[in-house]
């Protein structure tokens, strides 16, 4: 039954260059080498294009002559193109000299650093947007509470109006009592969960030793000396990646906290809106009754 089906890898016989797969890739990645290489290419190209651009208003142009980190490592664009397609045009990894492979390792390390830094930037942007969203949610919560307060005020005024409508009418007309199905509760402020609230209090957390100790200067701004060999260069890049990943981890933790707070706040809003809806519905019912009474009086 399954005999006719061939393995997808054996269907098309690729040329010797294309059949080569990265020995460090996992097997399933090998299937989609083409698909990945294009996206990888764009990300590295993006990294390349950003190197020379200078848009910072604080630049004096003094360091325009400074070489970028990549050129410090002595890469020419020709080499970069070679690395970008993983030496497919020059016989694969196996046929490269040790020096070439070292340079390739440095290039890959730099590319990874750029990717991690980009992730960090994206996370920072998300964090800023999330902060704004939380402020808006807080404002919305306040507005719901204020609207409910107004509904309670309307209830007071309506009660007085109903009394006046009840006292109107002829001498022999039967007294009118407004229909009320339930009392108006007014805003039910659903506070934060006190346990969680206390747990979140920064000073108490610090006393308990829950807050992570403030990190020192995490970024290796100026390494003690310029890395000389490829191994040192890769180590420097790895340190940069570690710092960036550590920052990213903290940011993602914070984003998780934000998401939880957003969720609980929206839940509070839902509860508050349910109460508000009930009260407004009751007010609506009473206003209709008062209008009917008014019409009846005018009809007489």
């Amino acid at each position: 039954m399954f005999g006719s089906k061939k393995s997808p890898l054996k269907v098309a016989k690729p040329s010797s260059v294309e059949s080569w797969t990265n020995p460090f890739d996992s097997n399933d990645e090998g299937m989609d080498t083409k698909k990945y290489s294009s996206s990888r290419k764009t990300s590295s190209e993006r990294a390349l294009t950003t190197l020379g651009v200078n848009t910072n208003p604080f630049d004096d142009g003094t360091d325009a002559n400074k070489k970028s980190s990549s050129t410090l490592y002595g890469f020419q664009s020709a080499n970069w193109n070679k690395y970008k397609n993983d030496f497919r045009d020059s016989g694969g990894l196996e046929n490269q000299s040790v020096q070439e492979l070292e340079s390739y390792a440095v290039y890959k390390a730099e590319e990874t650093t750029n990717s991690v830094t980009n992730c960090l930037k994206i996370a920072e942007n998300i964090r800023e947007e999330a902060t704004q969203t939380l402020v808006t949610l807080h404002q919305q919560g306040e507005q719901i509470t204020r609207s409910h307060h107004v509904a309670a005020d309307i209830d007071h005024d309506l009660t007085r109006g109903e009394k006046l409508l009840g006292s109107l009418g002829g001498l022999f007309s039967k007294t009118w009592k407004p229909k009320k199905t339930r009392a108006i509760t007014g805003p039910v402020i659903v506070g934060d969960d006190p346990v969680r609230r206390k747990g979140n209090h920064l000073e108490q957390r610090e006393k308990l030793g829950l807050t992570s100790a403030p990190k020192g200067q995490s970024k290796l701004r100026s390494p003690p000396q310029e890395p000389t060999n490829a191994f040192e260069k890769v180590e420097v890049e790895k340190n940069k990646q570690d710092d960036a990943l550590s920052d990213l981890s903290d940011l993602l933790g914070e984003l998780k906290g934000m998401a939880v707070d957003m969720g609980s706040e929206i839940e509070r809003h839902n509860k508050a809106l349910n109460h508000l809806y009930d009260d407004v519905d009751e007010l609506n019912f009473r206003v209709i009754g008062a209008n009917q009474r008014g019409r009846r009086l005018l009809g007489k």
Partner: protein
Amino acid sequence: MADQLSKGEEFEKKAEKKLSGWGLFGSKYEDAADLFDKAANCFKLAKSWDKAGATYLKLASCHLKLESKHEAAQAHVDAAHCYKKTNINESVSCLDRAVNLFCDIGRLSMAARYLKEIAELYEGEQNIEQALVYYEKSADFFQNEEVTTSANQCKQKVAQFAAQLEQYQKSIDIYEEIARQSLNNNLLKYGVKGHLLNAGICQLCKEDVVAITNALERYQELDPTFSGTREYRLLADIAAAIDEEDVAKFTDVVKEFDSMTPLDSWKTTLLLRVKEKLKAKELEEDDLT
């Protein structure tokens, strides 16, 4: 368009006629108000904004004669919205009158809202001094009505403009106060480091290294997590650069921060001021040597 314009003029004439005639128990003002309202709507449809604004002002005076201040205030607001298209100053004066009327009838939240609108108009006209004054009034009104989020938004605007006008201490006080308030709120606590960064940048503009260091210590006490943030590192490194009078270090520090979180125009302006002062100091040093 022309059709609506002639209709509007017709309604206006009828209204004027009503006002000049005799009416029973002030009913002439009610009728005139109705006609002025129709006329103003026609002028709006004809996009004749000045005429629409003027008609709304006549409508407002009718409502005042009838002692319905709320309607009069609303008519002034409508007039302001018409004048907004052609004459900002007239728009502001209409909103100002509306605010006074809302205050008279105790509608302070409405007054606050329109004070904020006046501030926004001035801001649009780049009249920062007046914008600051009205944002401050608006914040005050919102605070009285316990609309804290809107109050804080207005206060932040005040702080922003105060810093632009080199009233740094005022700006610092506002940002620190907002940060203090935000710490006690589960939703607003995430914005604290942003407020402290703004306050810190204003501290840097004062160029008092001791004050900056003290402020950073105070911010750490206020929010124990602040010392681990990139914002804290930026402020501390800039303070060090100012202390060492090292422009290159200052530039590197700012560039590194900007590469991760692009600085907005307000921060850029203030940091450029700091840099200019630092450069001037460096030049002085060079002249002396």
